[in-house]
């Protein structure tokens, strides 16, 4: 049985349909990357799985039960944890308080998180508002880990960070993946996404247009799907060229 099963999901933001008929399966222990251009619907898909958005139609099943209409805070206790894009730390709380406020029993404790993200150890009692971008991102990931999720959803964790910081974060994340946590991540860096994940899905205009094992897909195939080049070429052929 798959840990996560998304079926025919449609999500709208007012008139805009951000996710169109998406189906997705994640097996226990798998790391799955979601790639695609800005506005392709990746973040919306992640947020809908976490319960921050309600879908217009379709189903989300997690760990054998339907959670489509379960509120976000209850999904956390079922084992779904989202690291939101833009970190969204509790700015008036210290690093440790940000971690503690999310705590649920399990492998991850404040000490384990500080071990996994060594850059946070010295900043333990600093207020989140005084942290650097990398420290904020590490705290945001650590905070979600404190909920001891079975499924970790990572939304653009490398956005706006220096390459060396991203390198550090991913080193820590490999340790998380090593714990057996199932991960669904959105990542702009195609090379990094394909290196860390076993499977890759590419989204374009709200749909998944390509899915496969990352060791079987070529970079060219993914790039083509990413920009919708194949479709453009097909259209060009049928209409006799684009202007």
């Amino acid at each position, binding site marked *: 049985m798959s840990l996560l099963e998304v079926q025919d999901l449609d999500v709208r933001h007012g008139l805009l349909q951000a996710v169109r008929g998406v189906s997705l399966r994640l097996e226990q222990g798998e790391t799955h990357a979601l790639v695609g251009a800005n506005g392709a619907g990746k973040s919306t898909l992640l947020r809908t799985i*976490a319960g*921050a958005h309600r879908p217009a139609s379709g189903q989300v099943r997690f760990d054998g039960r339907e959670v489509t209409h379960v*509120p976000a*805070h209850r999904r*956390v206790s079922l084992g779904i*944890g989202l690291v939101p894009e833009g970190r*969204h730390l509790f700015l*008036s709380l210290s690093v440790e*308080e940000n971690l503690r*406020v999310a705590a649920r029993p399990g492998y991850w404790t404040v000490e384990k998180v500080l071990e996994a993200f060594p850059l946070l150890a010295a900043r333990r009692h600093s207020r989140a508002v005084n942290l650097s971008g990398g420290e904020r991102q590490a705290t945001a990931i650590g905070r979600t880990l404190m909920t001891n999720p079975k499924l970790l959803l990572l939304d653009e964790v490398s956005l706006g960070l220096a390459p060396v910081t991203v390198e550090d974060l991913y080193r820590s994340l490999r340790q998380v993946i090593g714990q057996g946590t199932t991960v669904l991540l959105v990542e702009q860096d195609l090379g990094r996404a394909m290196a860390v994940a076993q499977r890759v899905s590419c989204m374009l205009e709200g749909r998944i247009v390509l899915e496969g094992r990352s060791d079987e897909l070529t970079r060219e195939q993914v790039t083509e799907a990413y920009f919708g080049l194949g479709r453009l070429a097909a259209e060009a052929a049928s209409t006799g060229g684009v202007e």
Partner: protein
Amino acid sequence: MTWVNAVIQGVLLGGLYALFACGLSLMFGVMRIINLAHGDLALLGTFMVLVVTEHLGISPFVALLIVLPGAAIFGVLLQYGILNRSLQGGELSPLLATFGLSIVIANLLLQIFSADTHSLSAGALTTASWRISSQVSISALSAVIFGVAVVVLGGLQLMLSHTQLGRSMRATADDPATAELVGINAKRIYAVATAIALATAALAGTFFAMRSSFDPTLGPSQLIFAFEAVVIGGLGSLWGTMVGGIALGVAQTVGAQAFGAQWSIFCGDVLFLAVLAFRPQGIFVAREARA
């Protein structure tokens, strides 16, 4: 020595103002709701204490043991029934909802209890006092009220700083949508805040009624004192509210000493306006409030 006495009486009175204001401060801090019905809700609790005291023939202190949990439960119902809905309607809706609630409660109390003034007797505490010198004496009731205020505000501050519930409240105050994503039920946190606010308001209202007579129309003036204490102290901090309440109390009693009793409330208002004009963030800005 009369001045020393004025300051001491002001500090003691300020404790009551702070107790009165802490619920207002908490609801604003956690939900950004300015509860215009705070004074009337306090009066509602006071009248409930009056009813229980008269019907059961018990001391108002014992009646509080029955009324305070009732006030907290009423707070939960109010949050789920009215305030959560109004929060979805934008920033102004809660203001209008609580304004309406204030009118409903005031008229309900007038209907049931008429405009007559009532009083609550605190028994032997009312008349007991300690004479410190010929001009300074501290009434036992004022001292008890001040002690309770320090314990309640201090307890709430410790709860906010050091418990999981307190962290959840501060996290929800920072960002309710993200709080949901880490497993916090924001609506439940809001209900807890309102329950605490209504219980402390009922407690303060009852103490107020032990000090002087009261009637159903006093809500708005009580709201203004609470509001002044919160603003003088600085929004979002309970210690600030304590300091604000004491500053307001001292301004009133020292003003009365200097210019006569009729200037008492005016002097409190002048302090409030001066703080708004020269230090709008409040005298005491909390760690929590500095984002």
